[in-house]
């Protein structure tokens, strides 16, 4: 019980749990529809999902300012690529939350003439850009770590390198690819925060891709991706060492 109190005392914890529940509802609704469930049950699941979405939007009202603060902090990072990626990602997140606030105002009747569809598309566009920036940052970190690993192993590998040049060109390429993949696997295995962040962003990116119509999948797949990424972010809250820093 004390563990729940400690967990829910953290700022994003409950919101992540409801996000997981929301996407679980999406997945459940899709599965039940495929299995021919009744319209009433599907309507109830949809209502629950909409309820959680609106509640989350309400508690996200302050997140725009938080994202701007995070962008202000990220500007002081030493590495230039990281500085650029993280700052732009936070700025896009701030815009996403601002659009989200407008959507909330429209749904609750404060701004009744807001075009829900237009603002929804806008918000997903900013969300997509933020995720692309996050994935670029992940790719950059992976590249750095792979180069570090490769340069650490090079003294051992020079003899093998000479031998590889003698072989066939295609085999040489396949060998190099295998070495790169093994290196990638090793880097990701020895950096759980980076792996978690990569998987989380990869899962999340399917949501705006589907909603913007760029890569249509099924609502079930979107629900599954959302649920997975929410569970992974809950994991980073429960175990703070799993969170990718900065």
């Amino acid at each position, binding site marked *: 019980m004390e563990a729940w109190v400690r967990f829910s005392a953290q700022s994003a914890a409950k919101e992540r749990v409801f996000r997981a529940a929301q996407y679980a509802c999406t997945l459940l609704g899709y599965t039940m529809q495929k299995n021919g469930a009744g319209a009433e049950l599907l309507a109830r699941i949809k209502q629950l999902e909409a309820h959680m979405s609106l509640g989350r939007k309400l508690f996200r009202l302050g997140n725009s300012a938080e994202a701007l603060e995070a962008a202000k902090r990220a500007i002081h990072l030493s590495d230039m690529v990281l500085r650029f990626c993280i700052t732009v990602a936070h700025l896009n997140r701030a815009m996403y939350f601002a659009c989200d606030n407008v959507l909330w105002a429209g749904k609750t009747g404060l701004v009744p003439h807001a075009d829900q569809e237009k603002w929804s598309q806008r918000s997903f566009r900013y969300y997509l850009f933020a995720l692309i920036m996050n994935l670029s940052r992940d790719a950059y970190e992976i590249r750095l770590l792979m180069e570090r690993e490769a340069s650490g192993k090079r003294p051992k590998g020079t003899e093998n390198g000479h031998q590889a040049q003698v072989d066939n060109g295609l085999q040489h390429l396949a060998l190099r690819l295998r070495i790169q993949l093994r290196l990638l696997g090793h880097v990701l295995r020895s950096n759980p925060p980076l792996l978690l962040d990569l998987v989380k962003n990869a899962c999340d990116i399917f949501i705006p891709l589907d909603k913007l119509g760029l890569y249509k999948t099924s609502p079930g797949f979107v629900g599954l991706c959302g649920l997975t990424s929410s569970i992974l972010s809950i994991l980073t809250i429960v175990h703070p060492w799993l969170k990718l820093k*900065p």
Partner: protein
Amino acid sequence: MLPDVYGHLCAFLDVRYRTEDPHSNQSKWRGLHNPAMNMFIRAAQYACMLLGHVLERRAGPGATRAALRQLEASMSSGRKLFRLGNMVHAMVAAKQTIQLPDLVPRICLTASNLIRALYFICDTVLWLKSVGLLPHIYKWKWRNWATKCYYYSLLMNLTRDLYEISWLLEQAAEKEKAKENSFPWDTQDQDLICLETERQSQPFLPLLYSTLKKHPPLLLDTTKNLCDLSSPLDRLGIYKTNPGIIGLCGLLSSLVGILTIAKPHLKLK
């Protein structure tokens, strides 16, 4: 400009979230902590109630009143969603308060926390009904139970506050007596001593005021509990008021709540 104002507001209120990881070089500012956000939304909800009542009295446009009511309902249901795990919080708090040294605060606060846990259970059932997951329960019955639980837990909190106030008043009175007895016993000064004694035994209200002024956490807690009492008193029909008064009291208690979150030393332990 608006985020800047917002940032300054947060800095002013000093609602900083302490990061769990002591070795992290992230800044300590992590936006609004959930309880703070809940208090802000609660304040906004009661402000809507108050505004709606004022507009009704002045026969304001119907559309505005309807929009305010819808906004209030939306904030109320959103807050209910985020209250879902709170019965566990109340049980854990009861486990902590049962270890208090003083008898009266121990009993009052533990009872209050246990009754609050029951309130949160009723609240969860009402949420399940509002979402459509439990369509066959009687909403009015559960709402009545929830209001009664909330009312009794507030009464327990107020009992504790009154106990602390009476204890402090006793201490203040004893201090006055001690001051009185420290005067040198001289027959020449006897008349002077009598006058002093008359002056020292102050009337009750100013003594209460001066005692509460020296203990702001107790004053804030008492004010918050008294303000919170208006809503259940109205719902249970014990003391009917109007939505305006309930809105005003709710707004005041939410502001006190925000203050105690922003300045933790103002929270009554």
